[in-house]
């Protein structure tokens, strides 16, 4: 099964991280990606630019509404994602737990919906 691991972290906290601190985090991310890739489990993933770089687009009654944001009043922001191949949820959870940001942020594990069996809300 495929799972999208959504990586939420505190942008404020990350901004305060020292240069060497960031380098260590990136290196750890790199190692995890390599290891997952070698096993064919890594399907994709990226770090996202900060939410201040974000644009929100909506189309309402045929009219396009473009705004800045989103600036939800939350402590953590979506900062990146991994798309992984895992045999089941427990394996996806185990991978999520190894993402460096899991230690101070939150990883949301979402199965990719398979057509014809999309779960009801």
């Amino acid at each position, binding site marked *: *099964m495929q*799972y999208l691991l959504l990586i939420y972290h505190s942008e404020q906290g990350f901004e305060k991280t020292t240069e060497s601190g960031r380098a260590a985090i990136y290196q750890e991310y790199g190692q995890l990606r390599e290891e997952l890739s070698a096993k064919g489990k890594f399907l994709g993933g990226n770090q996202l630019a900060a939410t201040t770089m974000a644009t929100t687009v909506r189309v309402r009654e045929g009219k396009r509404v473009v705004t800045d944001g989103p600036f939800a009043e939350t402590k953590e922001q979506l900062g990146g994602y991994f798309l992984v191949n*895992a*045999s*089941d*949820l*427990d394996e*996806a*959870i*185990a991978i999520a737990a190894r993402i460096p940001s899991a230690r101070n942020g939150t990883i949301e594990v979402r*199965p990719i*919906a*398979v057509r014809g*069996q*999309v*779960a*009801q809300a």
Partner: protein
Amino acid sequence: MDLEKLHREESGRILATLIRLLGDFDLAEEMLQEAYAVAMQKWPSEGTPANPRAWLISTARHKAIDRLRRVQRFERKAEEIARTAEIAVQPESNLDEEMLVDDGLRLIFTCCHPSLPLEARVALTLRTVCGITTEEISRAFLVPAATMAQRLVRAKGKIREAGIPYRVPSPEELRDRLDGVLLVVYLIFNEGYLATSGDALIRRELCAEAIRLERVLCCLLPKQPEAQALLGLMLLHDSRRDARVSAEGELILLEEQDRSSWDREQIREGTDLVELALRGGAVGVYALQASIAALHANAKTAKETDWPQIAALYDVLLRTSPSPVIEVNRAVAVAMARSIEEGLALLNEIERREELKEFHLLPAAEADLLRRLGRKSEAAEAYRRALTLATNDIERRFLRHRLTTLTE
């Protein structure tokens, strides 16, 4: 073998194996029902098979293969099931006992997966592992049957679509995951033990099921001291089941219970388990609560209760898992161990913090201490406050009774 008895005692285990073989909760449940229907027809005339469990599994499996063959789009799945048909070929063969035991354990861990909402874990465990009907579960939890059915459908949907595995967690994960299972078992027990509304028979059954489940866990996962502690705790509480409610359905406090009606055998087993758990290094909430329960259960009279020891255990419990409810219990223990005034002062302090404004046992505990001090009008006032907060009938009757005796 009596088919009904088999259904009651074994359906959880048979279902566990079918779920593994068929890879689908709903299909397994449905096919097992069909297999029971066939058994009801055949067994009385043809005799009970040598291994009824294997017979039911193999019949259910045949039914599943037939069903899937009829449904064209599942053709491939039917072949898969048929390929691993060693049981289907030899219906009377002895199933691998070890495999069956593992299936049961797998099912428990799947139903208690932390990715499911807690109330769904409890419901699914009762339905699937314990074989209690949706109707009964809904009555025990006082929700409409349709709501409970929906809860179960959603949970099974999530198991399928989120890919919750049907597997006993790896040794590294076991400790965390076991905690989650113990919580579900304890919630099931408490629902039966503490809820004083709803169907009394079903509540008793919930307690019995929680204990049975915990026995299975302790047996399958030996050397898990927290699991042993929980089994001990439940056995000790449950040993008082006949003494805590009068024939008229009135609540009887620990102090006033007829200790000769406590289940001595169960107290002995519970106490042994607590000691075993403590020696094994259990230090969690279950071990502490079980130690307290063991002190109560082994006191020959209410007067002989080792209150200083109980107060000390509540101190530790409060440090490991701080909660205002435990604080109330500790205050009562301090009142009994040292002085009622000291306990009362602790209760007043909790009251001032206003964290437990809705909790009827706080004014009830206060009322009881005031009553013991002979401060009748203050006690009556506290009982009245407790009465405005208590929601369940048996407790309300108890409080009202206390209030009348006080003002007589």
